[in-house]
């Protein structure tokens, strides 16, 4: 068999990898941790934000509103009816993140003019929040508006209105009808899962493909390999295939973890195939880079250099932060990053169950990237193996 050396090298790498328990466990734990910690840490919903409420209005709508605020699981009301200065002091002390003030005329603003009052800035709900905590600050404003909306739909508010005005309560509503295009209950962790899968692919391909080569080089194992009558290209191919196998295995781990965690996923055989196509192409791309680097890089520099690649590639891909949240100058990097296309494509096939036809531009971009880096990596290793050394003669030249 022509590729005996290749398969022997592949087998060796697989055995070493399988028996390296630390590496195996960490490769399992890393995606689990990422999914569980990041996926849940920033899920877009909040609970138990500490706030204080002061209600200066004794009418029913204000009471209903205060009640609704206190019942909200997103909030934890730690003080009521305190003075503004006390509330400010509590924010300064970090005891609360927000102070909600219901003004005296709050209820009356709901009534038509003969009974009510015109809406002036002072009669609006007043939310003072700790705006150094950006995400909580934004959430509080949204939450207050949401609770206010619920209050207006409360029957008690309607009967209070009728009691005062003897008119039917008709809420003039101006809201946006939001329809979820895909399965409901879609959360941040679902959004994150494809990115985590590809992050694992990225980390594995950078680390697991080049590292054995660097180690072999540093301990002189390559001298042993090269002293045998083996074609250098067979050795190179063995290392590349081993790297890709590790990537595929790693992607499978993450898929299984995602299924176990109940992440929304299109699980048809065809969508699985597409997932593997995209993950493998991206893996091939970074395996190529890793192998190209392994020819020159020293063992002590591996972590540093890998970090330099991992960090921007992952965070500037839309895997974690939406591309739309980045400034324009950074978006250029995002659009040149192969990971961006892999994430985009994978999100479509993995979550939406899209056909690979719809993500062809993504596949082409990642594919070209893989092709180029594979040429680079294999060539670099091949030249390093045979460059200054004596080249082996081709099989056909062997006679006798």
């Amino acid at each position, binding site marked *: 068999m022509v590729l005996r*050396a290749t398969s022997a090298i592949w087998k060796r790498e697989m055995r*070493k990898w399988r028996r390296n328990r630390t590496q195996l466990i960490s490769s399992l734990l890393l995606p689990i941790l990422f999914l569980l910690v990041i996926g849940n840490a920033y899920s877009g919903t909040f609970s138990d934000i500490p706030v204080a409420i002061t209600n200066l209005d004794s009418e029913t709508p204000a009471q209903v509103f205060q009640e609704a605020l206190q019942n909200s699981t997103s909030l934890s009301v730690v003080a009521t009816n305190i003075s503004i200065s006390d509330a400010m002091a509590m924010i300064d002390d970090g005891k609360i993140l927000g102070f909600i003030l219901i003004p005296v005329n709050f209820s009356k603003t709901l009534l038509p003019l003969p009974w009510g009052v015109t809406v002036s800035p002072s009669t609006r709900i007043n939310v003072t929040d700790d705006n150094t905590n950006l995400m909580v600050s934004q959430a509080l404003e949204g939450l207050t508006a949401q609770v206010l909306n619920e209050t207006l739909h409360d029957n008690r508010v309607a009967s209070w209105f009728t009691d005062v005005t003897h008119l039917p309560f008709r809420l003039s509503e101006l809201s946006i009808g939001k329809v979820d295009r895909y399965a409901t209950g879609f959360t941040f962790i679902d959004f994150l899962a494809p990115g985590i899968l590809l992050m694992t692919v990225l980390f594995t391909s950078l680390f697991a493909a080049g590292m054995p080569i660097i180690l072999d080089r540093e301990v002189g*194992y*390559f001298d042993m390999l090269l002293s045998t009558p083996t074609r250098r290209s067979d050795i190179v191919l063995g290392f590349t295939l081993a790297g890709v196998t590790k990537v595929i295995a790693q992607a499978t781990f993450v898929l299984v973890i995602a299924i176990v965690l109940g992440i929304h996923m299109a699980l048809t055989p065809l969508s699985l195939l597409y997932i593997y196509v995209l993950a493998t192409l991206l893996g091939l791309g970074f395996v190529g880079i890793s192998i190209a680097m392994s020819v020159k890089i020293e063992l002590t520099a591996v972590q540093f250099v890998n970090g330099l690649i991992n960090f921007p590639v992952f965070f500037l891909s839309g895997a974690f932060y939406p591309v739309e949240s980045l400034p324009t100058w950074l978006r250029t990097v995002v659009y040149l990053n192969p990971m961006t296309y892999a994430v985009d494509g994978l999100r479509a096939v993995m979550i939406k169950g899209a056909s690979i036809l719809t993500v062809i531009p993504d596949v082409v971009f990642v594919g070209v990237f893989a092709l180029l880096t594979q040429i680079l990596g294999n060539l670099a290793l091949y030249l390093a193996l045979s460059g200054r050394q*004596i*080249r*082996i*003669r081709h099989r056909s030249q*062997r006679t006798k």
Partner: protein
Amino acid sequence: MEVGQNLVKTVEAIDLVKQFDGLTAVDKVNMSVEKGELFGLLGPNGAGKTTTIKMLITLLKPTSGKALVAGFDVLTEADEVRRRIGYVPQESALDVRLTAAENLELFAELYGLPKSEIKPRINEVLELVDLDKRKNDLVAHYSGGMKRRLEISRGLLPTPQVLFLDEPTLGLDPQSRRVVWEFIHKLQKDWDLTILTTTHYLDEAEREMDRVAIIDKGTIMAMGRPEDLKTEFGKDVVELVIKSTDGGDSGEQLKSKLLSLELGTDLSVSDRKVRLGVPNGKTALPLIMHRIESVGLGVESISVRSPSLDDVFIKYTGRGIREDEGAQDSEDTKKQRAMMMARMRRRV
């Protein structure tokens, strides 16, 4: 096919030169190893031993010169050479997470052994080095000596005509060293194997090898059977220590003073220790004492012994093999270090 068989010289190097970034690591080495011989390249670290071996096993391209291994040119017939040699590198190159058998299996494939022969062959070579009972243990659990034996057995997988052993006992305890040499001798005898080794242990070279070449700074200084080299040196070695109270002579002055006395051959002076060769120690002693005292020097102690390879080494290189390791900042050491660095950079 008879070409390889009838050749008496299994390894032959002609004017072999290797330069790294302008530094000459091996300088016109000429040597030949005969079939079935256990030949040793003897020299301090950085002398060019490993570089010479790497050229012979086709891992390094010679800058100039020519080398034939098993009758094939290392430059133009590298593939044929690789088929006929076994190599045991200086650094341990084993996968510790693999078993002994798995380590060998990889190389059996790389050497292209027929599939059906792989298992029996692995058993055979492991049996030779007495590791067959532990073939399914992870190499991580092996001792240093066992790892070395495993590496030697790996070198035997292709049924080589020549086995290259680079510092086969480096870093091993005396007992393991002895065991490793026993196996090497057994191989040489049972397989009629030609073995080319390097070492910087003089005692091993003297005791274990059929023939040695003393190599220093990339050049072969002397070559021959250890006994012959020793006889060449002189029949007996006289070592004496000059009293420190006598004069403030520097080493050089002391040496020239002693040389003028014509005490014997190959005189060397290190601090106050003087070493020289004489045809007959017993009769020479009184004469030496007399002559030294006649120039106003005192002798603190004096002894006679038969020559060792160490004496031969000092004769050709001007210093002891171990002294060299201690020399920290000498120009030689710097040069050697630069050369090793250059080699490391090249090595992939």
